[in-house]
């Protein structure tokens, strides 16, 4: 499939690109090139992913037996570290800060983002936030879970809550700046002819994500700040013993954290649109509906937070309203899944590694989305809240969905980012490991959840052991599936075949330019004359 350009005259005299233009530390740490910043982010979030993953491996080992291996303190710190790192330092920045940072300017025909220095600033802010989180871990960890529920976090926990919360607070600003940069860039930097209706769907989904980042993240910052005030000065915001209300914390926290799951999944949906289209050699079915559904998700995501509090004592009428709104937000997600499937209809489909991840995404996201309906339904939420059912559901969406899309996107654009191809056989093998390992890890947790096994238990009644052993077995396969790409990607940097400009024969401006691109992407500003995914003329219109 890959058109490998090797030994041609251009390849002999190595062309200048954004990577080899300079090699000093300074040229990386003070770069304002969106592509280099994307690479800096890629390295940082991969390190955080390894850290968060190691915690997961450790607590899965603990759960092999009902009595566990670790003490309660250790276990509680492990799952808290896993959640905080994975959510705030991996999933939230993952696609926007790496792939979208690299690709959005190129996809719309621009030389860089609107604010290149703010882009670099956002990376530094991220690193400072991550260092606070790592400091909290090194000093002895934090035991509040990633949700920081008060009054446990504000009054009772004696772990390093402040450092972790401060890390999350700081990292939030990097997310806001990334979102802001994308919004302005998409509005102001599009090349001539790149109309809104010609934007790649990846740009649409990241634009919608940017809106949520800018509007939602300040609320997280406020929440963390109030938590710190409460913990330091006991001002009586969340602790009922001094006049506060613990439910207020949950309202504030979920007002950000529910939209945040769409910060995490929307960019992944954008990746899938690109991959499905390319490997079906076909324009995306119902472009307008897919683009519009991203915006609908962004708006609706702000009015569903109360579904996290159906059993917390919020008014019954609030619960009923949040339930119906939560069903409403499922509709645009369903629209996307149907359109991706329809895109394959009468396509010309090839099975390269990115496409395998896209198949995995559609399948697992479908299950993740449908099990979300169990939690939007009031009575079944009561029966499953706080159990492994919830854990399984959000891992199906966040790992089965989002991480699958991220991996698919990395495999799709790796030749553009590095100019090299990775091993096809190893990458397909590891995609298979990820799919099998993932299902083995998390499917048993749906059953465990309905049986009643609570989350965040370091030991458990013996009848739950078999399913937990299955889950841990799956986690080790999944871990291997994530480890292999790190190895063959690194290997490809030196030994990989030259990829050429357009190894997949894909449409899109990013494939028209050199791989890896030059610092300013385009020699002259491109003029766009066709819509996205122009894989040939429309021959037939259905319906």
């Amino acid at each position: 499939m890959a058109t490998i350009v090797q030994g041609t005259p251009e390849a002999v005299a190595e062309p200048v690109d954004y990577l080899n233009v300079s090699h000093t530390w300074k040229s990386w740490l003070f770069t304002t090139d969106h592509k280099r910043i994307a690479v800096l982010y890629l390295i940082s979030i991969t390190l955080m992913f390894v850290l968060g993953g190691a915690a997961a491996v450790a607590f899965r080992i603990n759960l092999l037996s009902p009595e566990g291996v670790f003490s309660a303190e250790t276990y509680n710190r492990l799952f808290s570290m896993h959640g905080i790192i994975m959510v705030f330092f991996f999933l939230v920045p993952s696609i926007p800060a790496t792939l979208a940072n690299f690709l959005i300017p190129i996809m719309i025909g621009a030389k860089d983002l609107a604010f290149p220095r703010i882009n670099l600033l956002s990376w530094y802010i991220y690193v400072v936030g991550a260092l606070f989180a790592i400091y909290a871990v090194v000093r002895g960890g934090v035991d509040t879970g990633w949700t920081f529920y008060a009054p446990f976090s504000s009054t009772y926990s004696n772990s390093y809550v402040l450092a972790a919360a401060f890390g999350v607070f700081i990292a939030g600003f990097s997310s806001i700046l990334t979102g802001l940069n994308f919004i302005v860039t998409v509005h102001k930097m599009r090349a001539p002819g790149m109309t809104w209706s010609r934007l790649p769907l990846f740009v649409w989904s990241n634009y919608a994500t940017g809106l949520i980042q800018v509007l939602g993240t300040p609320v997280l910052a406020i929440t963390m700040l109030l938590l710190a005030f409460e913990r330091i000065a006991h001002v009586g915001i969340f602790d009922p013993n001094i006049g506060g209300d613990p439910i207020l914390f949950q309202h504030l926290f979920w007002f950000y954290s529910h939209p945040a799951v769409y910060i995490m999944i929307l960019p992944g949906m954008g990746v899938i649109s690109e991959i499905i289209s390319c490997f079906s050699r076909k324009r995306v079915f119902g472009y307008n509906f897919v683009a519009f559904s991203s915006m609908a998700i962004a708006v609706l995501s702000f009015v569903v937070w109360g579904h996290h509090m159906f059993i917390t004592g919020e008014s019954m009428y609030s619960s009923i309203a949040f339930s119906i709104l939560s069903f409403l937000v499922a509709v645009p997600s369903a629209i996307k899944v149907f359109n991706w499937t329809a895109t394959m209809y009468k396509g010309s489909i090839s099975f390269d590694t990115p496409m395998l991840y896209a198949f995995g995404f559609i399948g697992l996201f479908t299950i993740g989305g449908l099990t979300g309906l169990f939690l939007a339904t009031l009575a079944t939420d009561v029966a499953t809240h706080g159990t492994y059912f919830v854990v399984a559901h959000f891992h199906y969406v966040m790992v089965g969905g989002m991480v699958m899309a991220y991996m698919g996107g990395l495999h799709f654009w790796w030749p553009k980012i590095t100019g090299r191809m990775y091993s096809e056989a190893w990458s397909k093998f590891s995609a298979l490991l990820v799919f099998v390992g993932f299902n083995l890890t998390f499917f048993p947790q749906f059953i465990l959840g309905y049986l009643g096994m609570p989350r965040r238990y370091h030991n458990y009644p013996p009848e739950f052991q078999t399913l937990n052993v299955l889950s841990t077995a799956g986690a080790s396969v999944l871990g291997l599936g994530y480890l292999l790409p790190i190895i063959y990607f690194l290997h490809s940097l030196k030994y990989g075949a030259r990829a050429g400009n357009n190894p997949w024969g894909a449409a899109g401006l990013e494939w028209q330019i050199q791989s890896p691109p030059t610092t300013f992407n385009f020699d002259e500003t491109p003029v766009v004359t066709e819509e996205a995914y122009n894989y040939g003329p429309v021959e037939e219109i259905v319906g």
Partner: protein
Amino acid sequence: MLASLAPILADLPPLWPTQASAQAGPIDDLYIFLTVVSAVMTILIFVAIIVFAYKYRRRAHPHATQIEGSTKLELAWSISPFLIMLIMFVWGAKLYYAAQNPPKDAMEVFVTGKQWMWKIQYPDGGREIDELHVPVGQPVKLTMASEDVIHSFSIPAFRIRHDVVPGHYDSVWFTPTKPGRYHLFCTEYCGNQHANMIGWVDVMEPKEYANWASGGGAQGTLAEQGEKLFQQFGCSTCHLLDQQGRCPILRGLYNKPVQLNDGRTVTADDAYIRESILDPNAKIVAGFEPNVMPQFKGQVTEENVIQLIAYIKSLSPSTPASQQGVQQRPVVIAPGATGAMPNVKSPATQEKQPR
């Protein structure tokens, strides 16, 4: 053949939780409906992907046919899933509504969550830790409070769960239908020993239950325990029983409207009485002065508050039947009833009180 399979089947993990309450069946029906709809949708998507991937693989179909889209199809696959979701919504909301409204004849039990134990108090004064005894067929309403952080009271076999939030009373109810011993879990992470904040629910045949319960509390009924506290804390100096003291008369107060000095009228329910004990200045009864009664926040435990409320409740003989019913556990006289309450841990709990 089948017999040889039996030990293997017995070793398999359970895949479905026991149904042990009247609530469990209807919730399982809804859960099964959701599972079937989800399975059908998942299979639909998987089959479509596999069929398309095979039929339109590049070797067999080298040239894609470009298709713009179809508004009709888009509308169809937006509206029809939403209609199915409306069924889920209404069905779920109906069951949820029912779960908010305990029947009038529910027996009341009081639960206090505290890192890391569940303290149970019965109207007759019996107390336990991490064990709840209930008779089969009897609706039970739990009134729950927390001494410290948020806990969540969950009995998977009953399909019930509710958070226990400090500063509030939360409640949940169920009707056990199957005798047995079932897990009781805390399902809101509450700190170090969260995983050990577990216990058992014993559902007993009414006769057996009457045997178990007939001992009553070691220190009198809940209301009697409350009366003792009422004297001990000096409440009786100002809250006189039959004539106006410095503070309002409490006889006949329970569940009655109370006129406040800011013009509002509130009902003297559990939550109001609890607040008035812990933070008397929060609501001042019309005609009375603030700052007369000391704050009891931090001075009494949630269990003490429950005892005091039970006492105040007992001062209202005209309390409607729904409230009367909760004064006593249903008494079924059984021959051979022993005087002792098997699982009572009351002397110990008294010593375990914090602060």
